[in-house]
């Protein structure tokens, strides 16, 4: 049966074993100027469930760059930054807690630079994200399509004292967030599958090192910035055969509030950062090893608002073992 073969053989025979697709999505789907979901969430997107006591450990490298961005809705370049590049090395560990519950943690180290101008790049440990995926239902429809419904919840918190006040070169928003997501996965026996989810990210206010800032037409004389929440939507169509698995899709980030970057202003942490991004991945199970997978991915922001028109590439390895 064509599917992305599991990295590890099942320990116990399962009734009508569901082929686990391995949509290790590449990355940087919510590519922003440094906003909500940059590279931190790059591999937390799929609907994969692990067996109990199965562990997946991944190391990824990602690089995204843009030389044009949307200042509000105006697409432009800026000679004072040239191309802005954000690179990251991420560690991710997924653990199957039970047949219906998988927990994933991820932590990237991020560094930024601008190809032109005088602005200093920034670097540091970014945000720790923990997600719990709970399989709500798993019916077989019409005897040939497996439907999986997941409820996903998580938390994200900065792990270093980086500043969000140096966009586009800050490495993140330095906001704590809570994530809830409803995800679905459909897979038929010919190897085609569909993944989709809708997500809401609640974000905590952030604190700046300065006592005032201008946002949304008002000059705030406080160091506290209200962070609008974020909605994410994602749909992926994929195909799996033998050692290959190839998902392709579109994701949309919609920030639920926030102001546009003003004409010739710098971006600001609470801007309305929207992005519609196309992504494609290739996963390949390395021959002669049953538990090592090569992940490659690319993403491109098709249209956006207050974000970079970025192109991102990701590569990584995932290693699986049983506890």
């Amino acid at each position, binding site marked *: 049966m064509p599917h992305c073969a599991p990295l590890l053989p099942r320990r116990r025979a399962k009734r009508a074993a569901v082929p686990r697709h391995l949509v290790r999505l590449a990355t940087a789907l919510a590519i922003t100027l440094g906003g909500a979901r940059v590279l931190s969430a790059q591999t937390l997107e799929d609907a994969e469930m692990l067996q109990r006591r199965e562990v997946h450990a991944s190391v990824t490298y990602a690089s995204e760059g843009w030389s044009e961005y949307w200042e509000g809705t105006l697409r432009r370049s800026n*000679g*004072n930054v*040239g191309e802005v590049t954000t690179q990251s090395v991420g560690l991710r560990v997924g653990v199957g*807690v*039970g*047949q*219906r*519950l998988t*927990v994933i943690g991820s932590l990237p180290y991020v560094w930024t630079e601008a190809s*032109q*101008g*005088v*602005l*200093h*790049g920034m670097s540091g440990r970014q945000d720790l994200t923990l997600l*719990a995926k*709970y399989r709500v239902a798993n019916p077989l429809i019409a005897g040939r399509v497996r439907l999986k419904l997941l*409820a*996903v*919840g*998580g*938390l994200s918190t900065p792990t270093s*004292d980086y*500043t969000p*006040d*140096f966009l586009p070169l800050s490495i993140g928003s330095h906001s704590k*967030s*809570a*994530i*809830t997501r409803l995800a679905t996965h459909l897979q038929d026996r010919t190897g085609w599958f569909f993944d989709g989810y809708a997500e*809401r990210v*609640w974000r*905590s*206010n952030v604190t*700046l*090192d*300065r*006592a*005032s*800032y*201008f946002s949304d*037409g*008002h*000059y*705030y*004389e*406080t160091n*506290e*910035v*209200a*962070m609008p*929440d974020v909605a994410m939507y994602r749909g992926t169509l994929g195909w799996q055969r033998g050692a290959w698995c190839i998902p392709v899709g579109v994701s949309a980030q919609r920030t639920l509030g926030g102001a546009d970057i*003003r*004409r*010739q*202003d*710098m971006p600001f942490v609470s801007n309305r950062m929207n992005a519609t991004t196309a992504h494609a991945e290739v996963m390949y199970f390395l021959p002669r090893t049953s538990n090592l997978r090569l992940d490659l991915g690319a993403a491109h922001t098709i249209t956006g608002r207050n974000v970079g028109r970025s192109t991102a590439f990701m590569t990584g390895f995932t290693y699986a073992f049983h506890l």
Partner: protein
Amino acid sequence: MKGARIVALAMLGIAVLVSSCDKSIVEPNASLPPVEAASVDANAGSWKMIVLSGPDQVVVPDPTPVTGAAYQAELQAVKTAQANMTDAQRAAVRYWTGAGVLRWNEIERELVARYNLPPAPRADGSYPLPDAENPFSDPVFPFSNPPYAARAYSYVSVAQYEALKAAWYWKFRFNRLSPARNDPAVATAVAASALPSYPSEDAVLSGVTAEMLKLLFPASLEEITRKAAEEREAAILSGRATASDVAAGLALGKSIAALVINRARADGMSTAPGNPAMWKSLSDAAAARGETPWQSQETPARAPLLMNFGTVKAWTMTAAQVTALEPGAPPSTSSQQMKDELATVKNTIDNLTRDQLAIALKWNDGAGTATPPGHWNAIASDYVRDARMSEVRAARVYAMLNMAMHDVAVGCWDTKMKFFNPRPAQLDPSIKTMIGLPNFPAFPSGHSTFSGAAATTLSYFFPQARASFDAMADEAGISRLYGGIHYPSDIREGKAHGTRIGEWVLNVARADGAN
């Protein structure tokens, strides 16, 4: 899978908890306590004028007697209006009883921040100039950068100070009591003051400030006009003034604004942007002295900010006096001292601590902010708020502070263009900055000059905080080294320059009869 359900429920619980968090932003000064001045400053009408020839240069007509039918009808109108106040009007009364001078300074800081954005380049690499006659276009007018803002704060503060001194003069000449003192049935937001109410100080402030702000920020005319009208209405609703108090005050405020605006139109600001020929001659002159001339680090290259601002008229000194107090030359760009200072900048940036970055960001005061002069106005506001000053005494603090910062801006810009000294990132391209790099020559540091002048001035009015002001000025100065945009000598000489100008302006304050 009981455990799994528990985890799922916990997740849901956290999400519900987080989503119900209150994210509203509370600004500390959103609600100011009503000001009950420690003294009414009955002699303020005799304090020395700055622009006007005297407090009676603009004549206020005699008020009608309080026993007359006209005034009694006005009192009745106050009481009727008070009985029918809407929630919005109550909020406006609370807002403006936090003191008009404080509120207008806050409003001006917002206007400066709103317009503090440089013009975007055209497709051909040139930069358009903001045009006062076409303020809504791209680029909007003004670009309220630090020198523009220093001048703007000073014009508003000086005009307010002049108008309030004149208002005090007429108030105590006519001695018409406040509505609440004439009629106990009139409600008051704060205890009825002994300050005579004709002409209304709130209306004077609304008139003079709105006229000045409309000149300086013409694209915000509607908002300014609304705020001014709200202040006048609040004066009546709070029981401080009647319609004739307000009408006389408004007329006085507007007339005095017109006199100050005459000065503004002739102070040289119109030629402050300079021109390409001047840019070239400044650069050539530095090269002829054997120095490396400043170059714009922006792409495309942008003319140095307001390169001719050094010829704008100062408030308290002649052009020759401005020059006499300026710093001497910076270290030569080819000197060992400059090499050492460049190495200091590089070493600082390469080893920057998080605390140093925080200081650089705290004092960045770059594009989109109220600028360093605005930052110091905000600092001053906290002290003015706590000092329970009369409006005219509060206006005096801002006038002296902002005259000092304007006058030091003139001297600072003159010095910057005279030496046309390059920034660290120009002499060593491996130096990258932690804050935006200002597009004008380095020597001396504008932040340091503004801060030296501000700390000196404020220390005179609030001597108990002298050490704190001085520490803030030092922190503002060193923040520019941490940001990677200034050499130590820029900062040292800048602060000394600012301190000299601050002392100079204090000579005006010491002799104005207000002590």
